């Protein structure tokens, strides 16, 4: 306690240095006066008395110095001194200071922006207590369609029956909950006839408890709310939804809203900042999963065999729930064996119900696994994390190049600094103190640059997030700026200060020390600074070569992707997505709905043709079924299946390689027909004509009448899948094809036709839930967002570092010429011709450039391994790219060398020899 008070007093004393110095001086003066008086009384002469007083006192300066050290916090006082010195130095060189701060702001800002994005997408933990205790479960299987969240082969969804089995197996060692992804449902508010959309997740009773989230108002879900016999119509809403749509009032608790025509009571409001476990797909409302059936929720599910949509999804056959568990202590390995055993039992039971033997064996190979869920689920993460890591690496190199520029600027000021340092050394400064002083100046620069960089980084990361999400509206909560970004920017600034400040500081101190020991100042500087500057420029050139090569490769990758043949005519195609199942259209009415929609769309002015289908284009088709194919044995194979209306291929612009289109004559009573795509034909009929062959779901009852060109239905990145097209009128009874897509070929401007289309459909089918209406070209470009963002950023980085390296080269050459003015003057006076002087500068420039480029090409060769995952259609060591890069650098470095070379040839020997 006493020590604390003493420390506080010392802190204060650091800031009252002047006053305390004055007081001490007065005290000492009065002490010496009293002592002198006493000696005078003893009979000494005034001079002797004074001298005796001083002698018995001891060294006055020494006492003052020790007093200063004792009374204050030494390091703080030094820091204050250093900061004031740094401030004065920077103010005396405003041009240098501004350039340095701006360059740093750019470098730190760019790095912070990219890192903030990376953090938001990959690392940031969920805003729940002890997020590291959360785990998600999945099954690994040999087959399996690409799950948008987990990649190929991982099954993240489980059935309700399995959830109960696993929950029992976990027992009291943790808590488990089930939840679905966000789905768009229709909501109606009391007193408002309009329909609105709401993002809803269906959850089990323990969801909020497992996540550790307390509702901010009202109450949370209980086991009674999620009881299949009671079907309690309750809901918990998010804070955002409560503010936006429920007036943010206490009265909202207890009101009833209609979701998908089911009246639910709002019983609780989630805390601010909680939007569910999907960071890129936020939820507005959480509903008990027992409401799945009353609300006709039928999304995001997979099953073996047909789904009976009239019964609740509580059976084992339908996998529609994601499972999450909290294991206190954070080690899931303790509970994993029991869970795996329980899952195994469930798998065996489910396999027993599968008729297809191949599917059955595949199911039995499924294994159960867990992964950490501390950062939640994120579709963005699966798509973008690789690209973001590569971008973070690249932007760090950009920051290094910026630091190198500033280091060179500091080295160029070595003359002034060495002079200062020489004086300070002769006054007794230690190396440590000098180093601290120089580094404080660098820290001051870095702090200023970092502060601007934070602002830039915040704006930049939001800009990048908008590009990545392809939205101009509000960003998900996970992208909100927070303390992590500030800490990162701060740490980066300190690291940058050390990187660019240390070497110039050490060189300046070494030069100062040499000069203090007697060497000529100019010689001392030359020996220490110029070689350093040369190596720094070589480093900049090397990094710049690497980044420019990467930019060119990524740019060509983007172009290659844009050149992929999607298999259909994208220009002039508008797609409409709709959801008749949630809108409660009975399965048998779907062919009629398709006909009506096609008629409605074709009637809109500017529309040339229209067709409906279950699988959209570049939309991720998930509809598949078992087929027996002629000549492929008795077992049924799983094929993608697309129910389409007549004229589909002409509308979509998919050329037919053989045979004919569907027409109105292929009706419900006509012979069953199908069209296959090239991939299917190649796989099952390699010999030749698929026309006339047969296939079918239950028997070989359908004839193939056409072969269509492969069209990409999943994404532009995935190759086309073998697909069977069937006329929608020929769907079997009781089948409910997921009709969701209307393709419209237009002959005018999309901007005017799209709203007209939407209006017409709304008038014709007022109850139909219509989603996006948009041009296909926009969907294609959105599919290439990742490649585009990476290519553009890499291009920006490449140009930036090229400019910085060119500036660096220019700076070093100018500095060299300025220092060698005398030497050049002598040479010219002795008869050297301008061209020989040019060769002097030129050889230096060439030396630096060639070394830099060689190292850079080596770096490209070494770093190619990290790039190859991002490339398409080019190899990292693509010769064309390397030649282009070499040419670009030769041109740029020649330009950078031009002015210094001219200055060298313009040296007037008389002037040069006279100065110094």
């Amino acid at each position, binding site marked *: 306690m*006493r020590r604390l008070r003493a420390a506080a007093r010392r802190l204060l004393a650091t800031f009252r240095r002047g006053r305390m110095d004055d007081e001490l001086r007065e005290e000492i003066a009065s002490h010496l006066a009293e002592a002198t008086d006493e000696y005078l009384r003893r009979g000494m002469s005034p001079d002797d008395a004074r001298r005796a007083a001083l002698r018995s*006192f*001891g060294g006055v300066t020494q006492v003052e110095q020790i007093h200063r*050290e004792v*009374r204050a916090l030494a390091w703080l006082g030094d820091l204050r001194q250093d900061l004031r010195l740094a401030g004065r130095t920077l103010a005396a060189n405003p041009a240098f200071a501004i350039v340095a701060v701006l360059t740093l702001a750019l470098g730190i800002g760019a790095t912070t922006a990219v890192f903030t994005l990376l953090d938001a997408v990959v690392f940031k933990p969920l805003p729940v207590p002890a997020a590291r205790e959360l785990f998600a479960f999945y099954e690994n299987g040999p087959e399996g369609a690409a799950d948008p969240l987990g990649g190929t082969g991982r099954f993240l969804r489980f059935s309700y029956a399995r959830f109960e089995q696993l929950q029992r197996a976990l027992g009291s060692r943790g808590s488990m909950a089930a939840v679905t992804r966000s789905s768009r449902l229709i909501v109606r508010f009391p007193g408002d006839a309009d329909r609105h959309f709401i993002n809803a997740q269906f959850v089990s009773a323990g969801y909020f408890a497992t996540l550790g989230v307390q509702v901010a108002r009202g109450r949370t879900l209980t086991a009674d709310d999620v009881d299949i016999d009671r079907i309690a119509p309750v809901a918990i809403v998010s804070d955002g939804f409560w503010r936006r749509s429920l007036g943010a009032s206490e009265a909202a608790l207890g009101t009833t809203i209609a979701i998908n025509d089911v009246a639910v009571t709002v019983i609780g409001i989630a805390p601010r900042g909680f939007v569910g476990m999907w960071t890129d797909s936020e939820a507005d409302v959480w509903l008990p999963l027992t409401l799945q059936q009353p609300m006709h929720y039928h999304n995001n599910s997979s099953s073996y065999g047909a789904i009976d949509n009239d019964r609740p999804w509580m059976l084992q056959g339908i996998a529609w729930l994601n499972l999450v568990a909290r294991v206190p202590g954070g080690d899931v390995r303790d509970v994993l064996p029991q869970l795996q055993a329980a899952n195994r039992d469930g798998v065996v039971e489910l396999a027993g119900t599968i008729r297809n033997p191949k599917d059955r064996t595949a199911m039995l190979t499924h294994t159960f696994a867990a992964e950490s869920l501390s950062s939640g689920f994120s579709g963005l993460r699966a798509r973008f994390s690789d690209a973001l890591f590569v971008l973070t690496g690249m932007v760090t190199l950009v920051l290094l190049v910026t630091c190198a520029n500033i280091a060179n600027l500091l080295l160029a000021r070595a003359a002034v600094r060495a002079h200062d340092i020489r004086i300070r050394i002769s006054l007794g400064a230690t190396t440590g103190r000098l180093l601290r002083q120089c580094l404080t100046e660098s820290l001051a620069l870095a702090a200023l640059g970092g502060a601007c960089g934070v602002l830039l980084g915040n704006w930049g990361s939001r800009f990048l997030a908008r590009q990545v999400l392809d939205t101009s509206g509000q960003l998900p909560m996970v992208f909100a700026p927070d303390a992590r970004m500030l800490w990162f920017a701060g740490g980066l600034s300190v690291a940058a200060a050390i990187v660019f400040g240390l070497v110039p500081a050490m060189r300046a101190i070494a030069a100062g020390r040499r000069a203090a020991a007697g060497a000529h100042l100019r010689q001392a500087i030359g020996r220490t600074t110029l070689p350093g500057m040369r190596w720094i420029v070589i480093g900049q050139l090397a990094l710049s070569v690497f980044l420019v090569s990467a930019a060119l490769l990524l740019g060509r990758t983007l172009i290659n992707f844009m050149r992929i043949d999607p298999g259909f005519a994208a220009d002039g195609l508008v797609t409409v997505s709709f959801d008749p199942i949630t809108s409660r259209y009975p399965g048998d009415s779907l062919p009629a709905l398709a006909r009506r929609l096609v008629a409605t769309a074709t009637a809109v002015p500017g529309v040339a043709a229209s067709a409906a289908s279950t699988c959209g284009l570049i939309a991720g088709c998930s509809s598949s079924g078992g087929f027996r194919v002629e000549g492929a044995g008795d077992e049924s194979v799983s094929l993608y299946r697309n129910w389409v209306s007549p004229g589909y291929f002409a509308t979509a612009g998919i050329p037919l390689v053989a045979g004919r289109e569907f027409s109105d004559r292929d009706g419900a009573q006509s012979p069953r027909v199908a069209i296959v795509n090239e991939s299917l034909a190649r796989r099952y009929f390699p010999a030749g004509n698929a026309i006339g062959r047969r296939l079918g779901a239950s028997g070989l009852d359908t004839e193939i009448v056409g072969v269509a060109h492969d069209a990409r239905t999943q994404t532009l990145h995935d190759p086309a899948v073998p697909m069977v097209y069937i006329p929608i009128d020929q769907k079997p009874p009781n089948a409910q094809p997921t009709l969701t897509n209307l393709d419209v070929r237009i002959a005018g401007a999309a901007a005017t036709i799209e709203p007209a289309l939407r209006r017409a459909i709304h008038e014709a089918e007022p109850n139909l839930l219509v989603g996006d209406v948009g041009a296909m070209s926009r969907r294609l470009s959105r599919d290439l967002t990742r490649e585009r963002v990476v290519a553009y950023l890499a291009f920006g980085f490449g140009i930036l570092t090229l400019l910085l390296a060119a500036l660096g080269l220019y700076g070093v050459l100018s500095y060299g010429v300025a220092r060698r003015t005398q030497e050049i003057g002598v040479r010219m006076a002795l008869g050297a011709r301008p061209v020989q002087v040019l060769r002097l500068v030129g050889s230096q420039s060439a030396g630096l450039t060639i070394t830099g480029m060689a190292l850079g090409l080596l770096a490209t060769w070494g770093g190619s391994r990290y790039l190859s995952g991002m490339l398409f259609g080019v190899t990292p060591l693509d010769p064309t790219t390397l030649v282009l890069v070499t040419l670009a650098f030769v041109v740029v470095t020649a330009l950078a060398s031009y002015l210094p070379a001219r200055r060298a040839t313009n040296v007037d020997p008389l002037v040069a020899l006279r100065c110094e």
Partner: protein
Amino acid sequence: MQPDKHDVLYGSLGLMILKTLEALGSLHGYRIARRIEQISDNQLALNQGTLYPALIRLEQMGWISSKWGESETGRRVKVYSLTRAGRKQLDAQQAEWQRATAIVERFLRISEDLP
């Protein structure tokens, strides 16, 4: 003797200052220095200036307090006095010293008693 500035009581210098202030009441810097020299029978060749760092340390620890006043000759001087905490610290430090010297003395006496 160069005082170790990290030592809390500056070794014995701090103790001497506290004792002097206890015995003689409030004094200014020069008086304290002269008193210490006198008590030690001028055997302590003290650099009087070293007092001032010791004084500021003692003041920061709260064992003495200071205020500007007048010397006997009418000069403006800083006068130091012992605080209550300083008095307690002095007692504790004194007891410590006495215990330490007693132990050493016993050792010396033991070796004297040995044949």
